[in-house]
């Protein structure tokens, strides 16, 4: 990093830990695993911060770590085979869409809708709609062309809206 003092892990933690945690949850990490994965992110930060060259913003770099940690976690066999019974994924337009519980929190609803997306679309919509990155930053974080990121966002919105409408129809 030239000209800008490199932050300490503590400073990165203080500034970003809340949002890293939020991002991991929205990337499909169950609440029970969020702390573990958050820990993995900051251990990685601790290991790699000395090599951070500042070619991207620190935040972009950090969220790139989040995406990789979450993705690696989901690929683990014991995670891949888990099917949480409390929050089944919402399949857009399918007859098996669970009727929304009146008491279901919006938080759970978001998780269900995001859970209906593939990893690529999910990452784009989380980073753009919830974490507030620009699309250029999103493309850099998920390592895809900008136009691809736009396409994923558009498709993700469509899928989420379709799933939401389907759930509401099922309810009524």
């Amino acid at each position: 990093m030239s000209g800008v003092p490199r932050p300490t892990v503590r400073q990165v933690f203080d500034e970003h830990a809340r949002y890293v945690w939020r991002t991991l949850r929205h990337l499909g990490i169950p609440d029970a695993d969020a702390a573990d994965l958050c820990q993995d992110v900051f251990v990685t930060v601790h290991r790699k911060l000395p090599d951070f060259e500042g070619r991207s913003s620190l935040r972009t770099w950090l969220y790139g770590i989040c995406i990789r940690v979450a993705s690696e976690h989901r690929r683990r066999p014991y995670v891949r085979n888990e099917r949480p019974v409390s929050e089944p994924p919402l399949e857009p337009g399918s007859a098996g869409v669970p009727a929304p519980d009146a008491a279901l929190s919006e938080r759970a609803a978001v998780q269900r809708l995001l859970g209906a997306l593939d990893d690529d679309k999910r990452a784009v919509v989380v980073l753009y709609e919830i974490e507030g990155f620009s699309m250029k930053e999103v493309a850099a974080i998920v390592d895809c062309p900008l136009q691809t990121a736009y396409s994923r966002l558009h498709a993700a919105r469509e899928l989420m809206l379709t799933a939401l409408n389907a759930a509401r129809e099922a309810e009524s």
Partner: protein
Amino acid sequence: MSREGDPQRLSKAAPDSPLGRLFTSAERDLPTDQELGQLAARLAGVLEPMPLPPAASPGLSLWAKLGATIGLAALVGAGVWALRRPGAVSHAPSPVLSASATVASAPDLSGLAGAPALPGPAPAKVMNAAPQAPVLLKQPTKQTAAEGPSEPALLEQARRDLAASPAAALALTTQHAARFPHGVLTQEREVIAIEALRRLGRGAEADRRAAAFARAFPGSAHRRMVLDPSPK
């Protein structure tokens, strides 16, 4: 941060739309202070101290100097959060606590080097009034086993004493400040000290110290907790 050409965010452009509402809700879905404190505790060995300032300026208070060396862990913060929860179980003081730490009343921290935040107009004066301050400042951060418990152990003991004996906990934080004036767990010490003061009914003192904490560590993960006296 958005840029020209990006589509509008639904939470901003259409906050009342179904997806806009859900995204707004998702933005608020942050971990609790307790969750964050526990995470910080787990990362105790990873969160490194900030580098020391290149040179101590004459006008810099000791607290500010310590602020530049804030610690590597929130080892203790999580425990404090846990203690503040309604219904939290009190722990009896541990028998391993040294006799010197189990003082019956809390000392006046304002006279000790490395201790409290000493908010207010004349912290330097108070610091200078402490006869032992120059000596304490020269003490090394690392202690051998023969000299007493390690820095984390000392604060862990203080945390465990908080519920049953806040005076003892406060005394241990004072001991910490004396033994580890440039310790890496300065923030955690202050969190315990502030909570101990509150438990001792010394609310005004706690508030002053909390305000000083917030000034010294504006980005601290503990900041919200020390400024909010109500239990979570």
